[in-house]
């Protein structure tokens, strides 16, 4: 039982650090509160969907910014979508980069856009790793017979 308690503490601390470092915001709490016994995998499902969408959007963005003549409206549309879905799951730092990204699109600033693309890729992969670690911890707790700490 000790190891379960330890794991649970680890999880609580880990989640707290993600909030503290700005990776996640209040919206992630909202998601956790939507999860219940009838749908215990809700958060994992939504976040997985977010990962899928994000990979697709990042590809589209890279392609759009490689064009000889860049269609900034198209780029902006993709960033807008990315901003929307990242804010819906509480991926705070990703969302922030998207906001700056949109400003560069409006200014039609290629350099700025390319910089933001790198930044958003970076932030996305960071939050993705963090969330995957979080879900791993949750799995371990459940496998050890424990329950997830209340949100």
């Amino acid at each position, binding site marked *: 039982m000790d190891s379960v308690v330890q794991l649970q503490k680890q999880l609580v601390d880990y989640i707290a650090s993600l909030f503290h470092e700005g990776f996640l915001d209040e919206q992630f709490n909202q998601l956790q*509160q*939507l999860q219940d016994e009838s749908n215990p995998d809700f958060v994992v499902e939504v976040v997985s969907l977010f990962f899928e*969408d994000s990979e697709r959007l990042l590809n589209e963005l890279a392609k759009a910014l490689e064009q000889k003549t860049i269609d900034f409206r198209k780029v902006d549309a993709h960033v807008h979508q990315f*901003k929307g879905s990242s804010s819906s*799951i509480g991926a705070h730092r990703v969302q922030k980069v998207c906001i700056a990204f949109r400003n560069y699109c409006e200014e039609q600033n290629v350099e700025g856009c390319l910089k933001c693309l790198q930044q958003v890729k970076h932030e996305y992969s960071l939050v993705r790793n963090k969330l995957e670690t979080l879900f791993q911890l949750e799995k371990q707790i459940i496998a050890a017979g424990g329950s997830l700490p209340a*949100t």
Partner: protein
Amino acid sequence: MSSNINTENWMKDIGVLDHLSGVGEGSTSAATKNITALVVDDDSVNQMIHSKILENLGIQNQVVRNGKEAVDLHSSGNNFDLILMDMDMPVMNGIEATRKLRAMGVRSIIAGVSTCTRDELEQKEFMAAGLDDFQEKPLTTPKLVSILQKVNKKC
């Protein structure tokens, strides 16, 4: 604290639920079981979240991807108490869809749900198209509950 207790507290606050479930026959689903909703949003993450918020409140709901699908649903005779309308969508956006639905005589509560837009003019246009309410994304259960208060008053 389970999400169900939270939900019931909110329901109690807005007078949809007179007492917490477990006492008598009152239950979250009984209070809202007759309310139907339509989620109109092109983003699959948002579709999933909005649908779950509604589902947790016991509200039957359907999901479509753009304004045209919403209009088509109504053309074929469907009706909903509440429509959650995203603004930016391909094929037909929220502003146009809201206008069309109102022109068709749809009197459901239409709540615009959109990301914080720098363009205040666009938000005004959205309201003017026939919205009853506007909430900023991301949608949360408390925000939906405040929209539901309008549905309740109407019913």
